[in-house]
């Protein structure tokens, strides 16, 4: 009896531990649908400017590459390589993963159009 009671108790503790752990898991984020309208893309691409310069034009002599005026296809391909870990990176492999394919394509087109 004692053994069984102990087992039951242990089972209860384990079960409650599991349900507690489940309850403590934060729900996955419910992100707003991406906005690839002109305003939305301009706003997303503005983030890139902190490192790559306003509208993708870095300061003279910058080691951070320019984005303005580069073909959309080239930028999409590079972002894909960053995401896949196939291209050497310092921060871009981590940042590329924050954007889905539609967002990446829209941002790349925005920079192609900055001439």
């Amino acid at each position, binding site marked *: 009896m004692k053994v069984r009671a102990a087992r039951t108790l242990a089972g209860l503790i384990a079960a409650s531990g599991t349900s507690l752990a489940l309850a403590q898991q934060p729900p996955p984020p419910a992100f*707003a649908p991406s906005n690839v309208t002109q305003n*939305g893309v*301009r*706003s997303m691409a503005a*983030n890139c400017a*902190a490192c790559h310069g306003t509208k993708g034009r870095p300061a003279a002599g910058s080691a951070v590459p320019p984005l303005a005026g580069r073909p959309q296809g080239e930028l999409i391909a590079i972002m894909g390589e960053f995401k896949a870990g196939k291209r050497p990176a310092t921060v871009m492999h981590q940042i590329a*993963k924050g954007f889905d394919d539609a967002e990446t394509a829209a941002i790349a087109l925005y920079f192609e159009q900055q001439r």
Partner: protein
Amino acid sequence: MRMDRRQFLKAGAAGAALAGMAGCAATGGSAAKARVAVVGGGYGGATAAKYIRMLDDGIEVVLIEPNEAFVSCPISNMVLGGFRTMADITTPYSGLARHGVKVVRDSATAIDLDKKQVRLAQGGPVGFDRVIVSPGVDFMWEALPAMAGADAQNAVLHAWKAGPQTAMLRRQLEAMPDGGVYVITVPLAPYRCPPGPYERVCQVAAYFKAAKPRSKILVLDENADVTSKGPLFKKAWSELYAGMIEYRPNSKAIDVDVGARTVKLEFGDQKGDVLNVLPPMRAGAIAAPYITANRRWCEVDWLTFESKAAKGVHVLGDALQIAPAMPKSATMANGHGKVCAAAVVNLLNGESPNPSPTLINTCYSMVSDKLAIHVASVHKYDLNDRTFKAVPGSGGVSAAMNEAEGGYTMNWARNIWADTLG
């Protein structure tokens, strides 16, 4: 917000010319459709001012800032290390004029929401249709009673607002004899620039290693552990500066004996040769009416950065009650400025703001003169919780300290300075 007397005297006429109602002092002859006043020309405010003008040059933008030039907190630790000069981290405000931003060198003393005016210390009031407040942080001196006076604050420095104190702290380090002890205290998070204190330790250690190798560094951290890039900083400390740095977590500074150069802790006192005390922080004083969280920080609607306490007032940068995993960093404030600028332009044109804003944070720390580490993150807007959240699977830190990122650090700085002010 403090400013010195000489700056008050220089501020004069430009402010007076802008007195009056919104729209009266338009740029280029034609009447502006609206005027936005921006209080504070740091990473948040200056970026917002520039981006509003880039998005809609029919909106007049007046930036109110007491300092003659922008001095960057990022890279300022390298001035302490002796690897950069004050000139290297200083950028004039003149670049904003090219975008048609009017820079008024004055100090905002109050925001009058009935009259829709920012009152200034020297000049006449600046009228606005919307106001953006980006005041950075103020120090909670009440947490360290003996630090209340100017004499104490000029003797025991924070150097946590880049500027005169940065140069003063460098001079204190230069004057310290070899074999001396530099003591830095770190307040409980959240505070401006989570990795900043630990980067500063690296920079001071790099200077000591080269110039005063018998000297020691004592880190008194109120936090339970290094608050950002912890394993990377600890590795840098042990590998680059072996035997030089002692780290004491859970060490809360409660006061300073300025004369005895001693930090008073909850448990025991600690003497040093150079004391560098970072007090707890809150939103800058001009934003006090908009503080809604813990009597320290301002909460906003993250789609517009409009204050939860006052309509028509937008708050940016380090003064904010942060979203989950969002640091009080320069890149973040620069991003706040852009989301806010776009929303303000939308609102003044009768349009809806972007329902799906994105922010990216990239933050480098120099662990020596050449080696750096980073933390990066991507943040998107969560519909249920109405806040920014980090995108799962994105972001991260450096695998190890490295020279490539050391090079990118200065490039990042030059580009964000140009993006903010150029």
